[in-house]
């Protein structure tokens, strides 16, 4: 499934979508960036509530397919600008992390 298809299916809000046709595979959940660096895989959907500028760097370096911000957290505009510049897909949902993960269960 592509990032775009995933967002459409679950009604997640696209915040930065430079690579909508990217295929997603697997999921990782975490807010401690080094922990995520050590464990998130390429093409994962990464669920987090962490929205500082380093989130974008970690997403780019781990090569995840999508950062899904849960609990309706909203990043600052410059964070989204950095995400677009680095080719990082970012979306948000009002759902808590567990509920969002359950929704993704059969898609990734």
């Amino acid at each position: 499934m592509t990032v775009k298809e995933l967002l459409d299916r679950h009604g997640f809000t696209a915040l930065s979508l430079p690579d909508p046709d990217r295929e997603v595979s697997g999921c990782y959940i975490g807010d401690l960036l080094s922990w995520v660096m050590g464990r998130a895989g390429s093409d994962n959907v990464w669920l987090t509530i962490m929205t500082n500028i380093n989130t974008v760097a970690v997403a780019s370096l781990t090569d995840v397919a999508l950062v899904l911000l849960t609990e309706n957290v909203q990043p600052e505009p410059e964070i989204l600008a950095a995400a677009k510049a680095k080719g990082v897909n970012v979306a948000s949902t009002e759902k808590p992390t567990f509920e969002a993960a359950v929704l993704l269960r059969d898609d990734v």
Partner: protein
Amino acid sequence: MSDKLNFHFDVDGENFVSAGQASVQVKKNLRELGLPPEVIRRVSIAMYEGEINMVIHANGGFADVDVYEDKIVITLDDKGPGIKDIALAMQEGYSTASDQVRSLGFGAGMGLPNMKRYTDDMQIDTRVGVGTKITMTIRL
């Protein structure tokens, strides 16, 4: 390619916002060289952790990435406080980072363990009060 290619970076010790710029630039450079995605991922993650460490603990330093025919060598050199107990620093979850650093999502005590995890060899040369030099090798 008998000669090495060198990428050299100054890591700004004061700036959490720009931390990671060198790693992102290296990722881009290695991609242009046509290296395998998994190698690029390993190099850029190991380097990012090192960069963050230099910002958190050592007030910045220098980072070098040397690309050889059969390996990539990352060298991180700082004039920070040094590492008192390497065995302890290598334990997952052990960190001396401040609360401010933790609020940014760092300080999980995973930096050095991640650097070791993603590289084939890691050497730490540290002296308390003098600085730390870390050399990481990823074989191609």
